[in-house]
């Protein structure tokens, strides 16, 4: 099925140690010099939150932050970013505590099937890091390289703007989901807002 000058996939080229800081942790893995960052992150480092959608730079699902800049990991040679500071979607949250952008994507419907979400989050976070007060046009321009097939983008823009408001300190991060029910009547029956006849 292949032409005379078929480019053989094996043997792969010589491997060497690839080092970088991924989500604040130094990672060292063995990788061939032709490796694409996306492949290294998924198959070697294990950050499976970085998604492979089109592998050609169109969908943006593989976006990671490299030294604060959102980059398409599918179009980046791993060797070129060795030693740099790489942030994937796994690095946005602080343990179980979601970053505002993550919380807002959930709250405002910015994520449906969720496959493009990691890429959008990275792009959006990179935008907000530099500009916590973006116009809708600026948001649109920032995420024009990310493809979402579910949401029609509108709720994504709303999510980003909601997160921007938190970054600006205008609104507060919502309660984490693990706290399901703030009690509206902490004083119990003594609470003046308690409806009459309420359980004691």
């Amino acid at each position, binding site marked *: *099925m292949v032409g005379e000058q078929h480019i053989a996939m094996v043997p792969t080229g010589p491997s060497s140690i690839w080092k970088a800081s991924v989500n604040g942790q130094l990672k060292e893995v063995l990788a061939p010099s032709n490796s694409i960052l996306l492949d290294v992150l998924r198959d070697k480092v294990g950050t499976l*939150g970085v998604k492979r*959608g089109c592998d050609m730079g169109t969908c943006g699902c593989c976006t990671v932050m490299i030294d604060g800049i959102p980059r398409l990991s599918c179009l980046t040679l791993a060797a070129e970013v060795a030693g740099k500071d790489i942030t994937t979607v796994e690095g946005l949250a602080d343990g179980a505590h*979601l970053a505002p952008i*993550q919380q807002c994507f*959930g709250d405002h419907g910015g994520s449906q099937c969720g496959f493009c979400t990691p890429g959008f989050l990275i792009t959006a976070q990179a935008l907000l890091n530099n500009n916590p007060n973006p116009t809708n046009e600026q948001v649109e321009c920032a995420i024009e390289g990310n493809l979402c*097939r579910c949401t029609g983008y509108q709720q994504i823009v709303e999510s980003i703007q909601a997160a921007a408001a*938190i970054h600006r300190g205008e609104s507060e991060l919502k309660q984490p989901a693990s706290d399901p029910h703030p009690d509206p009547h902490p004083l119990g029956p003594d609470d003046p807002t308690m409806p009459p006849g309420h359980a004691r």
Partner: protein
Amino acid sequence: MTGGYKQQPGGSKKELRKDGKRVAGKQRFAPPGSGGSKPVMSKRDVDFIPETIGGKESQPAGAHIHDRARTGTAVGKRTPLVDANAKVTGQAWYGDDVRLQGEIIGRIVRSPHHYAKVKSIDTSKAEALPGVLAVATGEDAPNPFGVLPVTKDEHAMAVEKVRHVGDLVACVAAVDEATAREAAALIEVDYEVLDSIHDIKKGLEDVDEPIHWRGKYHVGTTNLQKRVFQEFGDRSLVNNPRAMHNGKWKFKGVNHGFTEPHAVVAHWDPNGRLQLYTPQQVPHYAHRALATVLEIPMHQINVIRTFVGGGFGGKSDPFPHEMCAAILSRKTGRPVRITFDREEVFWVNRGRHPSLIEVEMYADDDGRISGFDIDALIDGGGFASFGHVTSYYNGVLATAPYELGSFHYTGARVWTNKPASGAMRGHGAVNTRCAVEVGLDDMAEQMQVDPIDLRLANLLPPHSRTISGFRITSNGMRQALHRVREGSDWDNKFRKLPLGKGIGVGCGFFISGSGLPIHWDPNKFPHATVHIQVDMDGGVTVHSGAAEIGQGSTTAIAQVVAEVLALPIEMIHVRSHESDTSPVDLGSYSSRVTFMNANAAIRAALEIKDKLLEAAWEVLGYHPNALVLNDRRIYYKHDPSISMSYLEALHKAQEDKGSLIASGAYRSPPMGGVHKGAAAGLAPAYSFSAYVAEVDVDVETGLIKCTNVWAAHDCGKALNPLAVEGQIIGSCHMGLGQVLSEQMVYGRTGHLQNPNLLDYKIPSIHEMPHVTPIIIESCDPEGPFGAKEAGEGPLLPILPAVVNAVYDAIGIRINDLPLTPDKVWAAIAKKMKLEGIEDATGLPTPRLDFSALQAKLVTRSEQHELRDNRRQRSEDTDAYVNGVLFGFDPNIPLEDQVDGWKMSTKPTPEQLAELGLAGSIWLKKEQREMEGDN
């Protein structure tokens, strides 16, 4: 925040680092399952409790049977998806994220030919490559399969023939991806190339070697896969029409374009069971097909649905690559992972059918729609897939929301040597709907009436029967039209905007669940089953087979259970990934999940609730009828101080029994006619939608920009308005792609020229208009809390709305989608030449002077509105059958009606002479009918 206890790790909510992250500290969690940190419950949220049971939630469409199960807890509230946190943290595991110990990589060898016999396959070179562990070919799995039992025409790999470029021939498994790719390239296949068919029309002709052979049911020696003829109503009504529209449409194939490529992991475990991880919308059908192909009992297979990175119908067939992974895993005894490159996604396709559709529509002097005449020839590609159903849907889903004098449909689906078409969001209804809605716009123009008023004067009422026998229950069509008319300021814009700016309307009608399950025999199995288990910890585990594909089905189920049991949604844990633990569910297709699963879940939850209330009765001494559930407490409704916590009631109920278990099921009621094909399009409820779109057309370049959409959709009851709006906006995006830029381009050699996301042009954010989602709640009597579908129907109206808006902008109708700028420009150039216009900016735009009919239509729609309101609230329970507007008496059986009204599913000899393109296939005979001829 106050209350709650603290648990590590945690943080304080106020202190945020500069990057927005929380300063490390303590995080507060609520005590699980208790009545809160203090024995105090949240206030009843009366805004979300229906009027009919004393709350403040307005119910313009009347009461609902589920109202008394409402607690104001979750239903109707904007609820983030319950799996959102997994998705935003990168922890959601999609197909390719399943990495098992010792996994090896599978790769598929695909046909380079459109159509060929496989003479021999030499796998020796591949097998000799170090690192290759297994090779499999069609011989390893000869059993055919297919999503529909009537059309099983697929194999794991080619058994005799390959039917399109990219069809599967063999597969390999190797220690790593590089070796697998290399091995695949080393497999040598000897083909005998056959004459391939690419032109859809050629599919109707007799050929030497049809792509499939249906034995005695094969029609001639053509490539016809399915033909349909349907006629209802009184054909004589179309004589002497006031307006008549003829539209010959071309629709290109479109692909789902989900972002996650197909991926599968098969693991034949040490117990001899197959564990298959796959992003499937319909795991159950894959489960069945796997058993058939692998020749093992179903219980030996555990289908594990991973997170699904977008489905839209494209992940609903059982797929050959799933079989391949299983076969390779069985051969090697190791987990095998196969992930597609993007072009493989396009080769497996199952997208919307390329279609040639002709509509003829008639309106009479009263502005009534006297006839629809639809002829649809659809291109199925190499396999049947869902095509049997699509062949019907292209016609029958146009029988509402309008009252018709007659309906005539001929449809044909042919095989061609292209990747198979299948089900895609708005399955089968989208293209015809576009043609019909544009036709209405044209007829309104001919009659000099407003197209919205024309529609309003011809709507079927709630609780009625369509001309083809579908049972319509709730119907919010009229309200939807009113709302988009107001929202868009239609009356001040339509036919009044300057050149290049236009506004247009379109409507939609779609099934909310398929009335008949595809595989059920016996037919009394439920369509959906939900199990609920509650143990002493108070957490509610819900087992459902509903496939969450991002549409929010898991959230919807959690919401309804939370609503019934008055528990915070975080206490509801939906488990729906594995066939081992999930009750059988038919899957996420035909917009059935919310309707059917939520109904099943409500039934199961009500059973749990009964058990809890019985326990509370024992303790509190008051009959369950006098007990109320609210936020983890149960209390006596006349004296709320008499109460107990949910946990106390639960523990009481568990005495001597252990955990509470309940099962709920849903099966749609028997309905519909008995004619051939009557089941196609039957649904327990139907959704309705109306959109108004505004466009800017650059008259010099032909580029269209859709700027605004007012999108009203009747989903019965929005269980989760956040998700419903997401579905509406997302549908706009997908439909806009089909109408403006998306197409699968088959070049002059028949090859798919654009199997990648750069050349397959899904709209970017810049192409998205501002969408104003408008939710209409018609409160469906059988829907869960009144809900109907919202996932597919909202896609339908955007296409015709845009096409009609383009006409309003430039006075040109283009019946060839997508409306790429070259087509628009060519049409403009043609018109300029025809009218002798030098400069495109001098094009005339259509204007409207109302005729006398307009006032008549407005009067009729006002009368109908009163009728509809009464029927919607069930104040008027007379039977209403399509045709009443034309004098049809619903109380007289069809056979006793006046001459004209009839129903037939086969053309008469006289009709054979005048059939359209697809209809012409009825001139040919099936093989069994030809036997006598020889």
